[in-house]
């Protein structure tokens, strides 16, 4: 860290703020998409299931970076819609990670005991009431561990926006690298920054999980050793299923 001046640190810290914003906004859009598409995939009409399945396959099938290029370069040329880079990035990240998230929502809804659904029908709850009063409250805690993994993938995915000129951490690092003329210190620093952000994200999600589990009367898991703490990813049963998100 020989000659990293205050100004250069400032560039990196501004980048951290942009990365945090990107992560939060994309996560909000992604969560919205995930819930809409995930619930639509359990709809009784086949056409709704088909369309939401199609959305999921298309956005999961393509690469997040290619999608981002498409929104940045093709949308303005082909349709005349020019988005502010920041929002184009949020749109691309939210739409693609929302597609991965929809699988989490669908899986968690499917994991609620069928008798719960039947009880709702027997009590003549409307489909909307069954969803919001019976299914989602029970499915919600199940979604959090895989959602945490996906959020970390999203955080890693935000680095892609630097390619398109949004001033996130990685973009700031490129500037600092040019100013310093050496790469090792700055890239080491930002890798550590990303790791810390991922760690903080996990801490927040663990707290949310504890609250959610307490809400349906389940005890939080115990015995968190040092190694377990370092283990940022939460082991879901289908290790390598949800987190096959990639795209980061």
């Amino acid at each position, binding site marked *: 860290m020989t000659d990293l001046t205050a100004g250069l640190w400032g560039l990196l810290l501004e980048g951290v703020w942009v990365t945090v914003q990107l992560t939060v906004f994309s996560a909000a859009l992604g969560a919205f998409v995930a819930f809409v598409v995930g619930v639509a995939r359990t709809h009784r009409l086949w056409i709704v299931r088909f369309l939401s399945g199609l959305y999921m396959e298309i956005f999961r099938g393509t690469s997040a970076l290619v999608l981002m290029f498409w929104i940045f370069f093709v949308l303005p040329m082909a349709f005349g819609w020019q988005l502010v880079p920041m929002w184009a990035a949020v749109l691309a990240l939210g739409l693609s990670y929302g597609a991965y998230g929809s699988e989490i929502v669908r899986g968690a809804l499917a994991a609620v005991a069928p008798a719960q659904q039947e009880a709702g029908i027997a009590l003549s709850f409307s489909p909307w009431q069954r969803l919001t009063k019976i299914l989602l409250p029970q499915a919600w805690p199940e979604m959090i561990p895989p959602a945490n993994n996906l959020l970390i993938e999203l955080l890693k995915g935000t680095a892609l926006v630097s390619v398109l000129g949004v001033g996130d951490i990685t973009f700031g690092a490129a500037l600092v690298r040019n100013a310093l003329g050496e790469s090792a210190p700055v890239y080491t620093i930002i890798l550590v920054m*990303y790791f810390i952000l991922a760690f903080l994200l996990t801490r927040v999600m663990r707290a949310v999980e504890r609250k959610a589990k307490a809400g349906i009367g389940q005890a939080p898991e115990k015995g968190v050793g040092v190694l377990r703490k370092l283990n940022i990813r939460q082991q879901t049963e289908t290790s390598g299923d949800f987190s096959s998100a990639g795209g980061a």
Partner: protein
Amino acid sequence: MTWDWSAVGDFMPRFWDGVLVTLQALVLGSLIAFALGLIWAMAQRSPLKVVRWPVVAVTEFIRNTPLLVQLFFLFYVLPEWGVTLSALTTGVVGLGLHYSTYTAEVYRAGIDGVPVGQWEACTALSLPRSRTWGAVILPQAIRRVVPALGNYVIAMLKDSPMIAVIGALEMLGQARQFTASTFQPTEPITVVGIAFILIAYPASLLMRALERRLVR
């Protein structure tokens, strides 16, 4: 919305060059990821703390930081240390290293899934460690995790455009170059996007079929 089929035709030769590079990166990257992941997974089960802890720390670090930044690190920092690799080689190493930390988790789950009785039987027969792993544990563990490994190959495919950023001309890199010379971004980028879906969707169907066959 203007769609120019002649631009698609002009792009096609470059596109196939790009496909070739993408597949190269994918195959070589997967080989590194499969081999290195197995090493990580076995090291994480080592009885020695000095082996276990650093490996856990390093794999967690690599897994939770962006691949793009790791690629920049490899591409810019290694030459400062006197190792100069081509863009494609850097990309392959980066993809392989990054995904090895994911495959390590997959192997770990597979190894954990082997019943304890199998380990005990090895001890009872006093098999050496190499035979225990090579003839008993790994064949059972790996069979189970093949579909999960395949899913990571698909994920790696979708991350492969990142190596275009350090200058390896895979599909997206070719599209960018084509755009730079013709100012027609619509056709090449759309073609590349569709190509990803056309490769990734059948591949994921294949993995689901494999999963039904291999995992009971």
